């Protein structure tokens, strides 16, 4: 065995090589990538010095997709092949798309099931693929800037994203070849950026109004722990809705009919957005809209008029604010500060209404466009292992309740919203017919009582229940939500032990084989690339495991293991070390898994011993003095 470095449990024994990590804000309108260098996190610009990458992807036949500013220019000339605001479609089904579809000028391909595809000249693309193009562009930017391959990223999602939307985001990252350390809620990321900036303890409210989503989060920061105490929001409410209100007004004024061409609609929408932004600093703005046959409509929009148009939309954000205060069990007067996040919070009326609601002027010191990416970069730096453990810990919550369909189409909630994650809950169900051998399990997310009013996440069947009288079988269903907010479900029939486990693949998500296929199909991942990347990933996993086991053995082998266990682990360890750099993917994976299994019991013992150590080191009375 090689010389071992002795290290404290939980710390890396390897010499401290700085690992490359980045935070990605994958926004509806714009996306950003930030990274932490010498302790300071900042957003990375492109070669032209722009920080914001417009979240727009343009497809042309036989060419790689174009992302960003250039694609944005194509939005008016080629609307059908230029996809904007794709975030609104992530993890959504065809019915949701049709609802939103009135506003979105693309053509959708109907499919029997699974996620909707958008038809483009480059073929049908799924929202996940479109998103992955944006992520690839940001990955390239980061890797050029950092001059190396990224070890891991933190990607932000709206706190109010449901399981399907989170899963779709993770799939997009996988397609882009990114190792996701954690999905982080956007408002939480903003809180990290602010909290660590100021180190101020207390209750922070993050009001995040982006292009297409609204989130409100209430966090408590104390003794290095960020605890999300409540979150609420609306996953389909944002600056785009303000643009639509203005566009509707323009269309009424200019006498443009509702069935105007795609490019005409795009033109009006884009003028509407420009007018909205101009009215942030001006009190009125001139409008000029090109109509058919060379005609032109000209008009004026004042800030007062604008505010009348958009006030109802902005007021819709206040109900979730109330709900979050209630869930957090706090009063407005308990709030130390209110942070504004998202480009839409530049709108003066937003600042005014938020200020009135929380009875204090909101904070805007950090650029609301950049703050989320900066917070994500800080968290990525911690998770990848560049910072000392114990520096900051984040305790996040699940935004929407999770439940199961029961008799009569009702949702029985297993995990309530705003429960701290990771979390697991189990519930027992029984059969309702004599001799019933299978049971359908339908997982839903949402607050309403009727299943039809909730979002359907997954359906699966537990088969092989031995025939029994009705009500005798005991089926225990366990929901586990991990630290990314992603759900897996286990079902087991207790009397016979028949079990079933699924990683919840959302009803509108991509299937595992579809992702594989896309990885193979994508132009910059020829088959050999995919294979070699897999091998490299497996080798990195193996190496990480070897390091961890060796350092664990060095510290705790004598204390916790008997000869037999120790020998078994050592054998598996030596075998994996021999094969570590082997070129056979199968072999590396097989031996990794053998060592993983052989050392699992040891790891469990160490964790128990650690808990014991932590607790005995600090008797209850000690806590008061800290």
């Amino acid at each position: 065995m090689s010389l071992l470095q002795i290290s404290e449990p939980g710390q890396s024994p390897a010499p401290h090589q700085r690992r490359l990590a980045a935070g990605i804000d994958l926004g509806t309108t714009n996306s950003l990538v930030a990274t932490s260098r010498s302790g300071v996190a900042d957003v990375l610009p492109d070669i032209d010095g722009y920080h914001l990458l417009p979240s727009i992807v343009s497809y042309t036949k036989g060419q790689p997709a174009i992302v960003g500013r250039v694609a944005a220019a194509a939005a008016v000339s080629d609307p059908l092949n230029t996809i904007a605001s794709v975030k609104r479609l992530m993890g959504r089904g065809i019915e949701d798309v049709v609802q939103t579809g009135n506003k979105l000028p693309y053509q959708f391909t109907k499919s029997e099931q699974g996620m909707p595809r958008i038809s483009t000249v480059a073929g049908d693309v799924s929202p996940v693929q479109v998103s992955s193009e944006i992520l690839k562009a940001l990955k390239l930017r980061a890797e050029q800037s950092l001059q190396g391959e990224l070890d891991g990223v933190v990607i932000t999602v709206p706190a109010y994203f449901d399981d399907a939307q989170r899963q779709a985001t993770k799939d997009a990252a996988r397609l882009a070849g990114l190792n996701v350390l954690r999905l982080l809620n956007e408002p939480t990321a903003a809180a990290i950026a602010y909290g660590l900036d100021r180190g101020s303890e207390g209750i922070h409210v993050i009001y995040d109004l982006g292009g297409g989503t609204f989130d409100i989060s209430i966090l408590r920061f104390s003794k290095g722990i960020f605890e999300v105490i409540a979150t609420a929001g609306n996953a389909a409410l944002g600056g785009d809705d303000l643009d639509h209100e203005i566009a509707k007004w323009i269309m009424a004024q200019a006498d443009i009919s509702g069935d105007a061409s795609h490019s005409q609609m795009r033109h009006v929408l884009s003028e509407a957005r420009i007018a909205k932004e101009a009215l942030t600093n001006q009190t009125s703005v001139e409008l000029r809209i090109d109509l058919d046959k060379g005609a032109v409509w000209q008009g004026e929009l004042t800030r007062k008029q604008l505010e009348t148009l958009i006030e109802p939309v902005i007021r819709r954000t206040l109900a979730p604010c109330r709900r979050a205060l209630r869930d957090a069990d706090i009063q407005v007067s308990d709030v130390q500060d209110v942070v504004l996040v998202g480009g839409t919070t530049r709108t003066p009326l937003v600042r005014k209404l938020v200020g009135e609601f929380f009875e204090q002027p909101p904070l805007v010191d950090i650029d609301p466009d950049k703050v989320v990416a900066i917070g994500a970069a800080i968290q990525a730096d911690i998770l990848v292992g560049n910072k000392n453990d114990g520096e900051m810990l984040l305790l996040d919550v699940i935004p929407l309740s999770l439940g199961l369909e029961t008799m009569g189409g009702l949702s029985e909630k297993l995990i309530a919203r705003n429960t701290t994650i990771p979390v697991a809950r189990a519930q027992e169900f029984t059969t309702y017919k004599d001799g019933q051998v299978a049971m359908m399990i339908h997982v839903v997310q949402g607050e309403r009582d009727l299943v039809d009013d909730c979002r359907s996440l997954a359906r699966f069947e537990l088969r092989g229940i031995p025939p029994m009288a009705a009500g005798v079988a005991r089926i225990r269903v366990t929901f586990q939500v991990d630290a990314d907010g992603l759900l897996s479900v286990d079902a087991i029939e207790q009397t016979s032990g028949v079990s079933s486990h699924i990683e919840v693949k959302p009803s509108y998500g991509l299937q595992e084989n579809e992702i594989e296929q896309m990885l193979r199909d994508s132009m910059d991942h020829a088959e050999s690339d995919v294979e070699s990347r897999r091998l490299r990933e497996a080798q990195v996993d193996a190496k990480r495991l070897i390091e961890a086991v060796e350092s664990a053995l060095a510290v705790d082998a004598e204390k916790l293991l008997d000869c037999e266990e120790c020998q078994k682990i050592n054998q598996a360890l030596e075998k994996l070390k021999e094969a570590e750099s082997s070129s056979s993917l199968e072999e590396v994976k097989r031996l990794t898994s053998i060592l993983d299994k052989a050392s699992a019991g040891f790891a469990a013992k160490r964790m128990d011993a650690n808990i014991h150590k932590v607790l005995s080191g600090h008797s209850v009375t000690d806590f008061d003095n800290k």
Partner: protein
Amino acid sequence: MPSPSKKNYFELFALPCTFDIDLKALKECYQLLQKNFHPDRYASKPDHEKRLAMQHATELNDAYSVLKDPLKRGFYLLSLYRSNEQNLSEEVSIKDSAFLMQQFELREALAAIKTLDELLLFIKKTDASINETIEQLKTEFKKISPDNLSTIESTLNKIQFMVKLREEAFLLEEELMG
């Protein structure tokens, strides 16, 4: 969910097995343990360590959510006292008919509320009677013995009734606030 630590929730946080616990000590112990075992501390560690960390953090969250809530803590403590492991049924069985009648009347009163001010007053009153009953529960738990387990259970069920009433009031509050 298997309990990775095989300890009861009180032991997990090094607390005495009583109803009237030190909430501050509970919180600080929870935070200390999470700082050591949260999956974020294991984000770049091998898979089995990640899994274990998740199981431990899950148990900590579960235990904390039970102990910090007086109603859940009460039911949990009662279940530890009951020799058989059978879970306490969720079914509410209250024999105190005066209490049931009063609850029935309160629900009718809630249904008749039209203004926010009335509702806020209603919530305040409900909070007060919940706190009052929790005080009663504290006394009962101090004298816990095989003989008064059913008294305790009945008090817990009463609190559960009132908590549900308060939840309904919150729903109405959301409606009234729009």
